[in-house]
């Protein structure tokens, strides 16, 4: 086997075109990264708010607040939560926004991204207890209406915030307890209304919601003062604004309060930060590299057939599957090294250029970054092995190159069509070799945030390594079939 590997490595090494092809593949990954970084210009864009965990957040909602010194408690009832969605320019109609929120919140300050905990009713997901943007716990289910109001209660005891829900105002069910650090001795506490973008098909539009509150009660810690109503984060890049001609408001008459708000208090997703960059965007050059390594992979075997070198190869190594395996190992190793070099160089360079041009990059941990680089190299290596096997089966380089390029690149192109339905896109990224691009995804799906979670937006139906495994499966089956036909056929 060592001798076979050595023979195949010598063959690969001594064809200048193939070595050059691998080098160009790595270079293309870097070049496209530089292009992506250099062509973007977002200088002077407003800063993206980040939460206590460092993740980008949306922190824009209508807040009716008063300071609360130390511990205390607040109770309110909600009897209505209605949303408006624009049907055309300036034409607001009643609509359904499942994650429209109205409730009570305790927040360190009105600063963007400051820590908080909140208890709320939602339009379509019942009572929820949420804190620090990413945490979400379900409470009493069901929608709120005048006939079936909800009472909400929020208690602060140091860093511990407890939220309760009730259907009658006397029997309380605990919705959740959150430990929120950094709330400070005096926090801002009060009512809030948020109304995230309404997802319609493949797009999203700004919405606004109005809630009717009543029965507001305060216990301990409260200083006398007026309620202040304001839209937080009005200029934030994660805020889509009010659908015209709407605006936020707060009116109190008798014991009831009416609050209208827009925006959300949640982690930022692709749709709330369309201009932000991801590592996947930077690594778009992978497609160019993919085409290069597929061509080289197919040629690595079909050239032998064309020049009749295959007779010599099989005479020297009569174990035909072992010859094929040796080829796959050599090809895979060379491609992996080239791909890894390209990705390891492209990601930091591209990120630096993007940041220098004012582009906000979705943050990733260093382990995720390593996974993307290794995954990209593995993707290229696996695709080249697939091309090798298809080349061995078809014995025609044009056919092999087309088959593998079409099965890996075309699905990606199809999902990148804006008119492609999400069900088709998800199916394509599950069953075709293009599923492997999942290994480059870095965005996180949040069930409590409505967003078109489609591959086009960077959210794949399969986990990173599972996606790569789909491509690996094709390569393994390809190799097995190639080994069988290589045995059965005369060379």
């Amino acid at each position, binding site marked *: 086997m060592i001798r076979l590997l050595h023979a195949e490595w010598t063959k690969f090494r001594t064809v200048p075109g193939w070595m050059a092809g691998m080098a160009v593949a790595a270079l293309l990954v870097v070049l496209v990264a530089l292009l992506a970084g250099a062509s973007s*210009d977002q200088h002077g864009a407003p800063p993206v708010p980040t939460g206590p965990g460092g993740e980008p957040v949306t922190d824009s909602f209508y807040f009716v607040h008063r300071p609360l010194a130390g511990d205390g408690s607040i109770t309110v009832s909600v009897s209505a939560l209605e949303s408006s969605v624009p049907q055309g320019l300036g034409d607001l109609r009643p609509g359904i926004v499942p994650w429209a929120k109205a409730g009570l919140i305790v927040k360190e300050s009105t600063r963007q991204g400051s820590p908080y905990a909140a208890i709320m009713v939602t339009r379509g997901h019942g009572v929820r207890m949420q804190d620090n943007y990413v945490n979400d716990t379900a409470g009493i289910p069901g929608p709120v209406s005048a006939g079936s109001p909800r009472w909400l209660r929020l208690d602060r005891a140091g860093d511990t915030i407890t939220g309760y829900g009730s259907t009658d105002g006397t029997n309380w069910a605990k919705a959740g307890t959150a430990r929120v650090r950094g709330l400070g001795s005096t926090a801002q506490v009060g009512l809030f209304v948020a109304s995230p973008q309404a997802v319609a098909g493949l797009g999203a539009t700004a919405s606004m919601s109005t809630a009717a509150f009543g029965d507001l009660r305060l216990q301990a810690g409260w200083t006398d003062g007026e309620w202040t109503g304001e839209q937080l984060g009005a200029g934030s890049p994660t805020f889509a604004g009010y659908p015209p001609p709407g605006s936020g408001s707060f009116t109190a008459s008798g014991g009831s309060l009416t609050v209208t708000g827009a925006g959300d208090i949640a982690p930022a997703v692709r749709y709330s930060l369309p201009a932000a960059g991801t590592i996947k965007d930077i690594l778009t050059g992978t*497609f160019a590299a993919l085409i290069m390594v597929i061509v080289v992979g197919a040629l690595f075997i079909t050239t032998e057939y064309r020049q009749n070198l295959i007779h010599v190869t099989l005479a020297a190594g009569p174990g035909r599957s072992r010859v094929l395996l040796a080829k796959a190992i050599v090809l895979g190793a060379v491609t992996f090294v080239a791909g890894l070099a390209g990705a390891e160089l492209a990601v930091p360079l591209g990120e630096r250029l993007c940041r220098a041009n004012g582009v906000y990059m979705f943050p990733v941990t260093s382990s995720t970054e390593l996974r993307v680089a290794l995954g990209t190299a593995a993707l290229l290596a696996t695709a080249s092995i697939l091309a090798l096997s298809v080349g061995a089966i078809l014995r025609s380089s044009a056919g092999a190159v087309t088959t593998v390029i079409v099965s890996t690149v075309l699905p990606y192109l199809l999902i990148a069509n804006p008119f492609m339905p999400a069900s088709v896109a998800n199916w394509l990224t599950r069953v075709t070799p293009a599923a492997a691009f999942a290994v480059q995804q870095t965005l996180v799906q949040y069930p409590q945030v409505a967003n078109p979670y489609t591959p086009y937006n960077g959210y794949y139906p399969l986990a990173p390594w599972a996606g790569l495994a789909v491509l690996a499966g094709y390569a393994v089956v390809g190799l097995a079939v190639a080994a069988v036909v290589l045995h059965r056929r005369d060379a």
Partner: protein
Amino acid sequence: MRPALHAEWTKMRTVAGPRWLLLGLIAATVALSAAATSVVTCGSAGCGGDLTRLSLIGVQLGQALAAILAVLVISGEYSSGMIRTTLTAMPRRATALAAKAVILTGVVAVAGTTAVLGSLLAGRLILPRHGFTAARGHPALSLADGPTLRATAGSILYLILIALLSLGIAAVVRDSATSVGVILGLLYLLPIVAQVIGDPHWQRLLQRIGPMSAGLAIQATTDLHSLPLSPWAGLGVTAGWAAAALVTGGLLLRGRDA
């Protein structure tokens, strides 16, 4: 010219490869189109989308087979050494390439028409079963509809132009695997790379010059104002690519030793 055409037609007719590729073109185009139309559903919440374009989506797959056929027409001759016989029999090299182009146009036109009409028929039969009914504002796809007729005829022309572009590139590159890599790279990569260009002006420019992104504008029947350029102008860009590739290929064929 007539003997040249007859010779090229005989080559095309008597080898099994082209026949399978043309059948594959039809099957792949119709299959992808039918698959795409059978996974969309029109729910109660309403359903937008360009159904003609969706029904013709298989062209994006079918063009790859048209490209291989075109590449093999010339690269196949280089790898087997047949090209020397061809050029001995037809010393006017430009005529030889022109004859190949004419025969290729003919066979791709026939297969392309079958494939595109088959896709449209599949869409017409499948879509109403998934809720896209006239009552919901989606009448069955029909060639009597102006934009649909334009999309259909344009898709056939697009397939022919991609075949001619591939023939030109293969005449330049000569090696079949590299030719296919160059062609599919040109078709598929430009739209993907265009997505990462941050500057919207450059992004639009790239979409306008890409042979695929520009040419497939011919399939659009809704939201025409959001296209990078108008349908016929887009197909014109693809035609420009094909013409440039054929002229370059022809000049190199005359200037180089075979």
